[in-house]
Each structure stands twice: as structure tokens, then as C-alpha cells.
């Protein structure tokens, strides 16, 4: 598309891109998540040893990132459902801001409790 970022530099477009990218990353994460939980098949001890491994800074930082991505995808998705299913109103333009707040809220909630 001629113009590159110049024509795409507005909130609704950022919201779209964040929603799509977060969706892709979460889809890549999910099989790992299910595999990790499968460790419980070996009993609590096996799951516990796995959880101990996750207690390193890089893994914890990744967890915060994943939680934030999930919150972003949720908030963006709620915004989309409102835009598509409710009759069009002006306040819907501001849903991007609301979605951003929800995302940051959950992300911070996890971060502050995990460090």
C-alpha cells in the first residue's frame, strides 16, 4: 500500500494490529501451555519440579508478557464485539482507550503479584 505507516497511524489501526499480533503469539504459546500442564499427569511432584523451573526471571518476564497479550486480546475482542453487534454510536470511538486500560490493568495486576 502506498504510504506505508503514514496512512495507518491512527488508534483503530493500532488496535487491529495489536489484536492480530497478540492472537498469533497466543496461538503459538497455547500448545506449550497445554504441554506444561500435562506434567500433572505424573503427579504433583512432577508438576512442582516444572513450576520450580519457571521460577527464573526470563520465564517470569515471559509470563507477564503472555498475560498482558491475553488481556490485550480480550480487551480488543470485547471492543470488536461491541462495534459489530451494538448499533453504531460515537462513544464507540473511545473504546480503544477503554481497551488499553483493561489491558494495562490486568498486565500490572499480574506483574505486581509475581515479582
Amino acid at each position, binding site marked *: 500500500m502506498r504510504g506505508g505507516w503514514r496512512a495507518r497511524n491512527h488508534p483503530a489501526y493500532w488496535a487491529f494490529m495489536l489484536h492480530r499480533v497478540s492472537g498469533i503469539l497466543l496461538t503459538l504459546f497455547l500448545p506449550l501451555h*497445554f*504441554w506444561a*500442564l*500435562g506434567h*500433572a*499427569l505424573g503427579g504433583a511432584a512432577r508438576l512442582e519440579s516444572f513450576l520450580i523451573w519457571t521460577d527464573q526471571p526470563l520465564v517470569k518476564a515471559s509470563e507477564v508478557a503472555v498475560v498482558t497479550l491475553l488481556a490485550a486480546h480480550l480487551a480488543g475482542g470485547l471492543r470488536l*464485539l461491541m462495534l459489530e*453487534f451494538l448499533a453504531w454510536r460515537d462513544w464507540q470511538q473511545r473504546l480503544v482507550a477503554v481497551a488499553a486500560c483493561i489491558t494495562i490493568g490486568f498486565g500490572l495486576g499480574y506483574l505486581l503479584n509475581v515479582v
Partner: protein
Amino acid sequence: MNPRAQVQLWAAKRISAAVLALCVTVHLATMIYAVRHGLSATAILDRTQGNWVWAGFYLLFVLAVSVHAPIGLRTICGEWLGFNSRAVDVVLAAMGIALAAVGLRAVWAVFAS
């Protein structure tokens, strides 16, 4: 794919999205609770093992995401990778089933004692 099937696919994405909105909200709150209280594996499994409510919840969660993710990937494959044939649809459906299988194994893992 005829218009009817395409609208059904879109509807499946929105319905699964609505289900996931509830599941994800509960899940995020649960995760924040879990890390806040520093839950160990034993503590987590104590809560989930034999608990039909949690099992039912996570079953619904896994099924909803197994519908939601492949449909999203289908759009991205078509728009960003240029793949939009019947073969892609079949592969993505298979991936959805595989995801559900791994997910159901995980649900069983935390439910069965």
C-alpha cells in the same frame, strides 16, 4: 466456500469469542490470585483434582479456543501468506483438533488424581 458457510465461520468465531471473553476473564483473575498467594503444584492440584466445576470450565475453554484460533489463522494465512485453498482449511481444521486433544489431555491431567 459458499456465502452461507462463510457466514457460519464468522458466527463461530464471534460465538467462541463471547465464550472466551468469560473464560479468559475468569482465568486471568484466577492466575493473578494464584501468583499472589504463591500457589505450589500441590495447592493448585488440590483445587482442581476431582473438581467437576473446574473441569467443566476448562473443557469449555479448550473447546472454544480450538474453534477460535484456527479460524483466525485461516484469515491470516489468506491475507498475509496468500494461502487460501481448501487444503489450508483442512490443515487448519486438523490443527484445531490437535489443539483440542492436547488441551483435553491437560484438563485431564489436572482433574484426575
